[in-house]
């Protein structure tokens, strides 16, 4: 199965790259190819639509604010299952695309142990064994897989509620909502980490590239794999270069300062 999936995936990537393109400039690395980016945003759009329409039905406090976006309550009710279905369909492709690099490893277990240092920025550099995805990203991925399945099953039960016994439908509402909350929690963190928390990350899903600095900081093992260089050494070299540059600037400034009284004399 996995080989046919890989073959399908490979073909999809190649075709997407033929339509779109990714420009990798000097000092940058290719992070996500066109196919992955397009899939990501298809999933994201379907998810946001599902979330907004779902939240309208979820909470009486939000019903009035969110249903008008979709053309009223009845329309929201009509569209929501379709948004959800599209989300699940797009995500199946993303799942096939990503489930290999998302496999849980020993490194991720260790990453999870240092989650406190990670969130408080005590660890400025990620540990060396963090690969293409870190433990948090993998957790989010598998949370989506889990809630995606829950959404689909309970969603279908609620969609075809007239075929189901009463209690199954009643339980489905709750499970569907809990899956939604799980997704929302992950979603908030995901957006934050992808934008404000880690500058330089968002472009991975727009341009498809990241800087090498970003790569050795956040995904050292991946950096090693694609460049063949040691992330620590690269970091140290960059640091030395920066220090030298700073010293050179300081030296130049001192020289300027020393020259200034002379230039004052020259003023007529």
């Amino acid at each position, binding site marked *: 199965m996995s080989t046919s999936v890989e073959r399908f995936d490979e073909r999809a990537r190649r075709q997407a790259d033929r339509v779109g393109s990714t420009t990798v400039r000097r000092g940058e690395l290719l992070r996500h190819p066109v196919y992955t980016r397009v899939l990501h945003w298809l999933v994201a759009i379907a998810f946001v639509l599902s979330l907004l329409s779902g939240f309208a039905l979820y909470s009486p406090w939000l019903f009035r604010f969110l*249903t008008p976006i979709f053309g009223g309550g009845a329309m929201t009710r009509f569209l929501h299952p379709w948004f959800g279905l599209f989300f699940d369909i797009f995500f199946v492709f993303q799942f096939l695309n990503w489930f290999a690099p998302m496999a849980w490893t020993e490194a991720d277990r260790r990453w999870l142990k240092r989650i406190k240092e990670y969130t408080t*920025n005590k660890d400025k550099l990620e540990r060396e064994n963090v690969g293409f995805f870190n433990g948090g990203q993998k957790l989010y991925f598998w949370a989506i897989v889990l809630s995606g399945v829950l959404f689909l099953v309970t969603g279908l039960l609620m969609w075809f509620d007239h075929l189901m016994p009463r*209690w199954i439908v009643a*339980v489905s509402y709750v499970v569907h*909502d809990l899956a939604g909350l799980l997704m929302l929690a992950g979603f908030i963190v995901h957006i*934050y980490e992808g934008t404000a928390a880690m500058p330089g990350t968002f472009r991975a899903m727009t341009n498809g590239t990241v800087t090498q600095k970003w790569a050795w900081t*956040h995904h050292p093992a991946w950096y090693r794999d694609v460049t063949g260089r040691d992330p620590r050494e690269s970091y140290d070299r960059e640091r030395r270069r920066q220090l030298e540059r700073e010293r050179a600037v300081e030296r130049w400034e001192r020289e300027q300062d020393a020259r200034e009284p002379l230039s004052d004399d020259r003023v007529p």
Partner: protein
Amino acid sequence: MSNPQTFQIQEISAHPGPVPGQGTRREEEVCKYIDVTTCIGCKACEVACVEWNSHPFRETTFDNTYQTMPSTEWNYWNLIKFAEDERDGNLMWLMRKDQCMHCEDPGCLRACPADGAIIKYENGIVDFQQDNCIGCGYCISGCPFDIPKFNEKTKKVYKCTLCSDRVGQGLEPACIKACPTGCLHFGTKSDMVQIASSRAKQLREQSGFANAGVYDPASIKGTHVIYVLHDIKSPERYGLPANPTIPASYTVWKWLAKPTGLLMAGLGLLAVFFHRVSVGPKLPQPEEPLPVEPQPDTLEAKRKEQP
């Protein structure tokens, strides 16, 4: 569906905030009392219901009984249910008028996610407002009596209104008016309970139905349609649940999970915001320019600086 201005509203489905005008007007609780022991199954009430509500005549389903169709429909709110039963080796033909029970604690209203689609008046009538209905069908699963029915064409749910339009004008529901045997009664809840109780007592003492009693299930805080049954111990024989309940998940879900979920979402957003403000972003290393030593900011540090 009646003009909501007619009665004082007590409860509105999925409505944030208070109910307008709640508790400003006194209203007597109304009740329909059905004496199944004197029902002859003539179905005059069915016809009256269809006529008053201007429903089109619909096809009936013959399934070797006298029953018009298996269950109530979106445009057939009143149905006499026929059941054959045995008592002391003899056949008993049970006839019961099935319609919305207008529960004091309505499961449909509890389950409904649409603001104002289901309202309950102070007088106990539970009324659907199809203008606000979004057709999700949650009320169908919320109802312990299988009453609300979905219309595939309009994508809305319909059920008996207890003729709220008639009651608002001081008239009895159409089914009551049509009943030829007087087995249907309409009035205030307290009056109906009293009449029903004395009828049950009569059945117990004079007609040999030792288990006769009033069906007004306490598990949903009573209903605004009550029955006198030959045998109150086994209402299932009449197709009534002995202990009608609203799935507990609704309570957990609506009054606990939803507010908690929203609160957690809000706190999550706040947490993320304050993480950015306090801990700050995680920049690619080494940062450019390199961070310098933090400036002393406490009074003590400043005092130390100035000799």
